[in-house]
């Protein structure tokens, strides 16, 4: 059922041109509307503020709960971003416009996935200084940035596939997290544990197994989601 091409037939955009075209389109739209990054940053800052309200301000306690709080805020932000990424395709039948294009569905997947990844990353880059300031934690930790980039990519891999499904279902806003959280659970656990290790001042070797687990998740699900994307979007 995969989409074969005939030799000599007119071809669509080359793979990188198609991915870049979708990505460029999403970035341009976002720069116009600010419907994803701005509201989600505000939402995430609120989550951090609420955490500081409900958590005991004892510095030793903060150190143990801060990694969890950070990843709760990031996953909620991620879910909101993923919901928006496909809602905007749905509004004027944009998704069908994409589907009419003679490019492989896996390329559409990578275009949408990279867009979702970048939006989440931008939100996190804005949030992290605020988070570090509120909880009095170090900001410049290369290990932490590595964990954030890899985990966010992992969220985007499965999240994009599930968002493309959820957008066509009833109760889509609630269905996306219900689909997303169990599958992304290992990434959430690994990211929180690695963050805890970074804040505790451990060396990279102490949490490299978590980084490896997230990286493996990224690779496996980028491939699986790209390969199955045509079954999600093609009627």
């Amino acid at each position, binding site marked *: 059922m995969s989409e*074969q*091409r*005939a030799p000599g037939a007119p071809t669509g*955009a080359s793979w990188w041109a*198609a991915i870049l075209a979708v990505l460029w*389109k999403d970035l341009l739209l976002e720069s*116009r509307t600010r419907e994803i990054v701005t509201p989600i940053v505000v939402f995430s800052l609120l989550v951090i503020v609420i955490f500081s309200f409900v958590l005991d301000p004892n510095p030793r306690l903060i150190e143990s709960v801060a990694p969890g709080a950070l990843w709760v805020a990031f996953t909620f932000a991620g879910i909101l971003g993923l919901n928006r990424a496909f809602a905007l395709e749905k509004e004027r*039948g944009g998704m069908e*416009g994409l589907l009419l294009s*003679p490019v492989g569905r896996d390329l559409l997947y990578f275009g949408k996935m990279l867009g979702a990844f970048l939006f989440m990353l931008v939100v996190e880059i804005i949030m992290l200084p605020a988070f570090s300031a509120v909880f009095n934690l170090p900001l410049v930790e290369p290990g932490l940035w590595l964990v954030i980039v890899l985990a966010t990519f992992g969220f985007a891999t499965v999240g994009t596939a599930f968002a493309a499904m959820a957008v066509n279902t009833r109760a889509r806003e609630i269905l996306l997290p219900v689909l997303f959280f169990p599958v992304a659970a290992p990434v959430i656990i690994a990211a929180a544990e690695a963050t805890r290790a970074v804040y505790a001042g451990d060396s990279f070797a102490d949490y490299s197994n978590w980084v490896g687990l997230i990286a493996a998740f990224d690779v496996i699900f980028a491939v699986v989601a790209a390969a199955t994307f045509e079954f999600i979007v093609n009627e």
Partner: protein
Amino acid sequence: MASTHPAISAAGLAKRFGNRPVLRGLDLELGWGSVLALFGPNGAGKTTLLRTLAGLTRHSGGALRIAGLDIAGRRADARHLVGVVMHQTFLYDDLTVAENLRFYARMHGLGATAAERAASAAGALGLDAVMNARVRTLSNGMQKRAALARAVLHRPPLLLLDEPETGLDQDAMLALEQLLARHREAGGSAIVTTHGVEQGLRIADRAAIIHNGRIAYDAPADASDADDFRRLYAEHTGASL
């Protein structure tokens, strides 16, 4: 572009949504240089047929070839050959007309000539003045023209237009008729679904009626016989036009 194969060849085409059958063994053949006006009551399967031809919907039974390409295995290639206008514009509201057209041109692999293609498609439909306006700010008629420009951007030999007259003003309708006439002269084909009898019979050289997921009537179109056609339509569908 026209090949020795017919533009469309569908045999026993079937499509179910859930358990509801919409197309029930539809047969249709369309040669090159021909425009087919397709009439039918709501729910008869017009839109589903066009969506299946466009590769947006996978058929559940029968055989379908676009220019000889079996669409079940060669959907990516078949997508090059069709230009589609549906009720939705498939345009992004917050991008300008030019940006939308350039985006779709790039998706069709027209990277180097994307801007040029976008401009020429827009010019043919009288969109020059609004190229840099966001789609959101345009009137419905202008949006529809932009959707038409998007559909013809990659110069597809087969056009599928689902009730293109909705939202089009007089001028735009004239532009569409001219576009279709040029398309046909160049050897291209089109299927146009419509509710307007006179208009449909004028732009087409063939008229068909779809009812209950099958082609119930199919004959050369004659614009002078609109009343006859209305009578035929009532006979075949039990509805009126």
